[in-house]
């Protein structure tokens, strides 16, 4: 187990370098960011040259990348164009997005798996059909439509919630945005759980369990669900990374100042430091979540052992 973890951690090293280099190159392809800093007019040449020197933009690209990585390892993610250290931006953005992700994941686990179990056990019944149709609708409608619709109905028409989230972004305020963010994945989790459950219900060990006369509850929770959850756990695990990085639309709609907001602004202002910094952290989160998922397999299915 320990050796497995070490091996996986070592594998992360090339992924980390590759991902940061790729992002660095991509942001640089967009061209010189200084030109966008002076509004609808040209920056005066002396100031522009000075700014370029200060942000290291006058150096060749490989030097810029090397300097950047060197700084990252000493804990310095650089400075955004508005004069704020990227580390400070991260400190304000990541807790917010983390909270949003937790709310979304909770929705996926609680609502998604429950619905999956209910429909899986009642295959072909009206409950199953209606949930299936409902998930189809949720998957088909884009997130921003769901978000704007809920915002208009709950926030403006009925006045149940505030249409936007305050800068504090407390858990209570994040329930509706979290639901919107989770909606599509939630539908997938429901369908995955259902299919997996239906498949495993026909397996030999369930027949044996039923023949032994075990109570139904124990059969479902201990034997059926535990084995059926493996694909679902994989999905949710990879979804953690996707939710954190992919919340741009939801964060914009509800005015949440999280990772999506910083990334959006970083891209718009062509701020290499912000974009590379945030994406690097997201890559790390993604890798960590994947490792966690792989380790969870062993817990769920004793047949899987990590050497």
């Amino acid at each position, binding site marked *: 187990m320990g050796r497995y973890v070490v091996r996986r951690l070592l594998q992360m090293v090339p992924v980390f370098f590759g991902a940061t280099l790729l992002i660095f190159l991509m942001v640089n392809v967009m061209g010189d960011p200084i030109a966008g800093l002076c509004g609808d007019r040209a920056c005066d040449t002396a100031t522009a040259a000075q700014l370029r020197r200060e942000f290291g933009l006058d150096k060749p690209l490989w030097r810029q990348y090397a300097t950047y990585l060197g700084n990252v390892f000493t804990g310095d993610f650089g400075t955004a*164009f508005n004069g*704020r250290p990227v580390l400070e931006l991260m400190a304000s953005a990541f807790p917010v997005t983390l909270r949003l992700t*937790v709310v979304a994941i909770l929705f996926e686990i609680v609502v998604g798996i429950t619905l999956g179990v209910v429909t899986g056990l009642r295959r072909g019944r009206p409950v199953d059909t209606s949930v299936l149709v409902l998930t189809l609708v949720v998957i088909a409608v884009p997130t921003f439509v769901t978000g704007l619709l809920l915002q208009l109905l709950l926030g403006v028409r009925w006045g149940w919630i505030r249409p936007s989230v305050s800068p504090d972004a407390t858990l209570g305020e994040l329930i509706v945005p979290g639901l919107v963010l989770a909606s599509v994945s939630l539908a997938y989790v429901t369908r995955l759980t259902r299919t997996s459950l239906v498949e495993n219900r026909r397996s030999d060990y369930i027949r044996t369990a039923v023949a032994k006369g075990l109570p139904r509850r124990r059969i479902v929770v201990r034997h059926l669900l535990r084995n059926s959850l493996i694909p679902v756990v994989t999905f949710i695990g990879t979804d953690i990374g996707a939710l954190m990085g992919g919340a741009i639309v939801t964060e914009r709609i509800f005015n949440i*100042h999280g990772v999506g907001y910083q990334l959006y602004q970083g891209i718009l202002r062509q701020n290499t430091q912000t974009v590379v910094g945030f994406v690097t952290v997201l890559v790390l989160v993604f890798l960590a979540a994947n490792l966690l998922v792989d380790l969870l397999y062993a*817990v769920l299915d004793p047949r899987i052992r990590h050497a």
Partner: protein
Amino acid sequence: MRGVARARWAAGAAVVLLALAACGGGASDRGGRVLTSSWGDPQNPLEPSNTNEVQGGKVLDMIFRGLKRYDPKTGKAENMLAERIETTDSRHFTITVKSGWTFSNGEPVTARSFVDAWNYGASLRNNQKNAHFFSYIEGYDKVHPETGPQTADTLSGLKVTGPRTFTVTLRQKFSTFPDTLGYVAFAPLPRAFFTNRSAWLDKPVGNGPYVVESYTKGAQMTLRKWDAYPGPDKARNDGVTLIVYTDSNTAYTDVLAGNLDLVDDIPAGQLKNVRTDLDGRYINTPAGILQTLVFPHYDPQWRTSGARKVRIGLSMAINREQITRTIFRGTRTPATDWTSPVLGTDGGYKPGLCGSACRYDPAAARRLIQEGGGLPGGQVRITYNADTGSHKQWVDAVCHSINNALGNDKACVGEPVGTFADFRNRIGRHRMTGPFRAGWQMDYPLIQNFLQPLYYTNASSNDGKWSNKTFDRLVDQANAESDTARAIRLFQQAEEVVRDDMAAIPLWYQNGSAGYSARLHDVTLNPFSVPVYDRIRVG
């Protein structure tokens, strides 16, 4: 099963940790006569000589007062901290600062507060994006040389001559120089700024009617009324809370839900229902912004003898009336000169100066373009940035209008550029081959500001590299003219030169728009499309 138990414990601990991380922070209280207003994250550090966009300017307008202030209604420059500004030759000025003014930390505003601030702004070392505003002052080429290191720290044209007086020497005659002093870059700065800049930036201290109470960068700024403010324009409310919105649609929705008091940028998509949504609590007033199409005069194709006729023809092929009505829903007005209505006719705005060249006339457009030798390369491509400002819609409409007028589906196409920075880059490299969009937001309400920076040979914002000796001579004359009325007439003559060559096609004057909640009264926008916060009454 021990493995399972341990995993459960770990999962439980993780949940607890996350819950702890989620705690902290309470609801912000609204109440009293404090209003909330939408805001955008300022692009640059919030210092006067570094702030060149509206969002940062909004704050500085509340916490700073300069020598002059532009009347929020008429745009006229009036003395604020200046007791008098005297000159005999339009080149040497003696400025006397009023007594009794202090910064909100108690420090008196003296001549030195201004001179130090201006020297800071001009110095190349400080990377100030508004440094070029000091370029008229003598010694600017020493503290801010085009290339190489600076050879002086302070402007030789600035001298403190007493506690409340200082002199300014300009490099050339500039009769309307005192009227430019209302621009935020010319604001005074307290000593605290120079002794500890980063602390000052965390909580700026100024001499305006509001003081910054707290500032969470990127999220929110709380401003309170400064009770001891010595100026005549004391705040009529108890404070303003600025809240950063990523998307103006969300801010608008918040106003509808009664969650926000003021949104000063109505999203384009909401314009058709804003009047009914807000029940008349919507304002739409002219701002000093002119949208134009600029031509690359450095490209030989646009310098031929017939190119002038082609440019005029293109201008006449654009149906401005229809586009401003249908796409902008009245938030833009068809342009008939190269300035802005906010200047007023006394200030140099002259409706109809463009004449027939700005009137939609497809037949004449077709004829002129034919006479001029046709479109260069058979097609014009209008370049614009696609990331902000919904430019695509109107560029497509302009092209549609041109195509219709010329009876050619391929006469005009839009050419989007992904980001604003990239767009500005392409313009800066002077490699454009066709017209490109330009939005000019005035720095100060003077006709000079609409002409000289844009069309004077090698001027800072002359992106099309247009150059005309007659124009330059007229501008020089106007700047040297001490009689304002005569100076304005000379500027208008210069503007006619721009018209005759159609250096840039004027499209429309842009309005500022805002919507507000029923709690607010006396909401107005100044000519810079910034809400006049100090006049707003709450409740």
